[in-house]
């Protein structure tokens, strides 16, 4: 799996990325058809951060999702913008398969996915 890298930050510095920062960055990655972020759609299964290396496990709405090939690159681009992130690995899994129940249906979202 390919990953994006940048020069290492000083270990233990205040630049160390947090899960909240990564989630905030992922909140800007939208599904182009639905207009909802990958976080709101419930596509993110896991985020591990170790010394600036971010490992993201995620799914797609269906195995045949047309953005299958390019979504990981969008994720990497967005997360690499977080200060202190040195590398991003994205793993796509379909176990467990995504279901619409994973969508966080806040009143705000209900209006947006129309």
């Amino acid at each position, binding site marked *: 799996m390919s990953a994006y890298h940048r020069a290492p930050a000083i270990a233990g510095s205040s630049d160390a990325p947090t899960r909240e920062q990564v989630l905030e960055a992922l909140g800007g990655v939208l599904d*182009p*058809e639905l207009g909802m972020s990958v976080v709101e759609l419930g596509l993110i299964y896991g985020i591990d951060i170790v010394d600036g290396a971010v490992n993201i496990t995620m799914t797609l709405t269906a195995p045949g*999702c*047309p*953005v299958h090939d*390019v979504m990981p690159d969008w994720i*990497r681009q967005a997360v690499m913008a977080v200060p202190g992130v040195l590398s991003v690995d994205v793993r796509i899994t379909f176990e467990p398969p995504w279901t619409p129940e994973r969508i966080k249906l806040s009143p705000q979202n209900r209006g947006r996915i129309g």
Partner: protein
Amino acid sequence: MSKPGPSAGGAPSPILPLSYLVTAVAAFVLACAAVPALAPELAGHYYHPRLAALTHTVTLGWITLSIMGASYQLIPIVLERRVWSERLARWQLWILAVGIAGMVAHFYIGRWPGLLLAAVMVAAGVAMHLVNAAMTLRSVERWGLTPRFIAMAFTGLGLTVLFGLLLAADRVWKFLPGSFFPTLHAHFHLALLGFVAPIVIGVAARVYPMFMLAPEPSGWPERVQFWGLALGVPGVVTALLGVPALLVPGAIAVAAAAAAHLTWVARMARDRKRPALDWGLRFVLTGSAFLVAAGTVGLGLAFDLLSGPRVALAYAVLALGGWVSLTILGMMLKIIPFLVWYRIYSPQAGRARVPTLAQLGWPAVEAVAYALLTGGVAALAAALAVGDARLIGAAGVILAAGALSFATAVARVLYHMAPSGRRPAAAAGARTA
């Protein structure tokens, strides 16, 4: 055209399916515009050379090219297999376009040798598609519902073309035994039930849940749809060719498949997580509603409760113009923006703000197209049943205006492919990364 752009999920360059879809939309506009001009002929018997020209503009130019274009985009995504040969697919479009234009022209002027020659070209183009599809499908390991329906549909397409060739050759050499009409009716029902119905159902199984954010359908409707068509279509076609005892059981099996499909679509619409429906989904769902009307009239014809060429024409319009065409129009409003977005904006996603698919279109014009086309199809079916040329002409004007509105909406989306039509990245409303 320009250099190959990115492709989606193993799909070919977006230009390939777009070429088919744009050609199909041109045929759709031409067909709708021809309805008012052919109103006197439409008020009479359906077997008229000019009506055959109109019918083949719809069935080959509009429906078949739409299905082929969509299949080159959707089959690789849905089945996760690359198209076997993009080059073959590009040549196929040219051969089909010339062949279809030739068929329509020769039907219109009533020249049968030229018609046969053009039909051979169409058959060659279809054969190319079938080879490409077979070579793509052969590596599929898990034969789920969609691959089975696609295989069924392309078998139906091959048989439809074979019957069509026989009919065209019979116009020249008069060799078919018995009456001409049974073979003609078999040809029509092979096209509608053997080719178009399975491809619509098979593709719907995968893409409707994606578009509506609904659970993937499963259970008895799936089996009833497959076996209803697998047993019903041979029954209906054999009955039309000379074993009338099979007509009622065949029609019941097909009606059961249609009812199961409607149950399925209704469940997805009911359980969807996407509350608001865009115009593409409205077209699709309204098309499904027309299946109720088409199925009812079809059963009426099968049970001899209805009869005559006017009802037969109304049935054809409800099925081809209502269910099939409205479904295709809806799917196009989903597929074309995606293809354009993928080619133009996908490379910027993650690096800059880019528009969402919904922002590429022109919803107001799509709404006008929806109102005119759904109303126009219903009005045309009613006018044909009555057999009044003035009413048919009026319905045709509504349809033509609807088709032009639809083409305008599609053109607005395609305009993004021109540098002057692109949304500046920073000005686009939604952020895609």
